[in-house]
């Protein structure tokens, strides 16, 4: 985390100079359309190939695109998340400082989990139940592979 913060500062400086590597990658990876909903946009990075290929074969291919699951569905949150993720993905991609088996981060995991309910609340509200501590069911415990 602290490493990330340092890097963030560094990049803020670079971005100010208008020539960050992030920006470079952003363009290189056809990032102008990062903001669009087309899954091909994500697949501009070969790193995302595995998920893209999985998604193409998944039950959700016709139902949900990457952003349906990976960005929050209120306008501010959506672009904030895209901004953040877009920045970090570009950064990691350019520096290569990411693990071979990418692991979803906590924040992004809960975004995905919330999105399940957006589409499936009808079918699951019976089992979601009402608990003193509002302990929502964790869909991903059983369905982590629905998207890809």
């Amino acid at each position: 985390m602290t490493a990330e913060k340092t890097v963030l500062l560094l990049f803020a400086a670079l971005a100010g100079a208008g020539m960050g590597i992030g920006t470079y990658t952003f363009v290189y990876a056809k990032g102008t359309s990062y903001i669009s909903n087309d899954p091909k946009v994500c697949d501009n990075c070969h790193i995302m190939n595995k998920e893209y290929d999985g998604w193409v074969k998944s039950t959700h291919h016709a139902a949900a695109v990457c952003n349906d699951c990976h960005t929050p569905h209120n306008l501010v949150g959506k672009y904030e998340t895209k901004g953040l993720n877009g920045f970090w993905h570009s950064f990691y991609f350019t520096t290569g400082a990411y693990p071979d088996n990418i692991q979803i981060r906590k924040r992004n995991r809960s975004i995905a989990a919330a999105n399940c309910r957006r589409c499936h609340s009808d079918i699951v509200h019976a089992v979601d139940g009402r608990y003193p501590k509002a302990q929502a069911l964790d869909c991903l415990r059983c369905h982590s592979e629905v998207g890809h």
Partner: protein
Amino acid sequence: NIFERKQEAKNPFFRVVDLDEETEDPAVWGKDFPFQYDGYKRTSEMRPTRFGGSEAVSRVPTTEDPRKSVSRSKIEADPRLKTMWAGYSFAVDFRERRGHAYMLDDQTYTGRQKADPPGTCIHCHASVVVPYRKLGDGDLMKGFSKMNALHYTEARKLVSHPVSCIDCHDPKTMALRVTRPGFLEGIKALKASQGTKDYDPNLMASRQEMRSFVCGQCHVNYYFRKPDKRLVYPWTKGLTVEDAIAHLDKDKFQDWVHADTGANALKARHPEFELWNQGIHARAGVACADCHMPYKREGAMKISDHHVRSPLLNINRACQTCHKSPEEELKARVEAIQAKNERLRGEAMDAVVALIGDLKKAKDQGRKDPAFAWAGDLQRKSQFMVDFVCAENSEGFHAPQEAARILGRAMDLARQGQIVLRDAAFKPTEPLSGPQ
């Protein structure tokens, strides 16, 4: 809390009757929750798997025992069990478990009734929430103590249903809850031993934990503490088989005196909760209900399948959300684990039976020396260990490595008993620690 409000707003169940703490009859709950009730009733179906499920054996009903079917006898299938339990009621009648629908009848009519069991037994074989409260003038714990003091036949008259909705659910919110005094006290003692004081699962457990705790109310190893016959889960040292023995040794407890050997013997009972706890699934946060009550689609909703049964009769829902292998392969994996366990279990039982044979001979010869006593203590321990795995109902699946470890230790101790009987100078690796 937004989430909760949303949930309330769209509660999919149309409540036609008002449920409260007095509503004992599951059929009434079934009016509000017909799908869950349908599943619940289907626990009367009997279908065997290779090592589990249940198979109906037809019988002619009598006035003494009106049951039309029973499940297979375990002691007839493996007479070594009779040797292990000589002098105890389990050597008279012990059958395979079957669905929840049968729990009250199977207890009422078991041959073990000849031993005149106490009302304590009811704790796990009936819907007791309403009866306990009634008997205790509104106080569940008091009712529990009072029912324990009755003879079974008297206590039996106070209950009417097998485990029912009210035993696991809050009638207002339908949230899971633990209602069994045995579990409440047991888990409190366990958590205290781990440094958490005054643990109350109904306030402190996560929802996911509750999805196992409701089963752990009954699917556990227990004993009737002396002299008050209070139902106790021997968890003060932990949940392993060694922890249970240490607890029982400290309490100087024995279930009975072995008829052939005079050993102060122990009976292990269905430690599903304890063994599961040692396995990889528990470690990975997989609950009993995940496998035994998986979600099921009914029309436009998902519900928990209340047809509690062997997951091998329901592999698609029970396993395949997490394991993408084909059904046949998953079944084969389970059976491979179980077959290995079954074989080792047989070898371990042979060791215990051999020790019992030696002890019987020694006893007949009138031996009373320290070596004889030590060998008897090793019978107590090794037999309890084998029994822990035999009485557990998954044939090793819930924790394969741990089950094999226990059986291995059992063989080690039983054989050491045979050695010390022949050679008083031999020092077994386990001290004589049981009651004398």
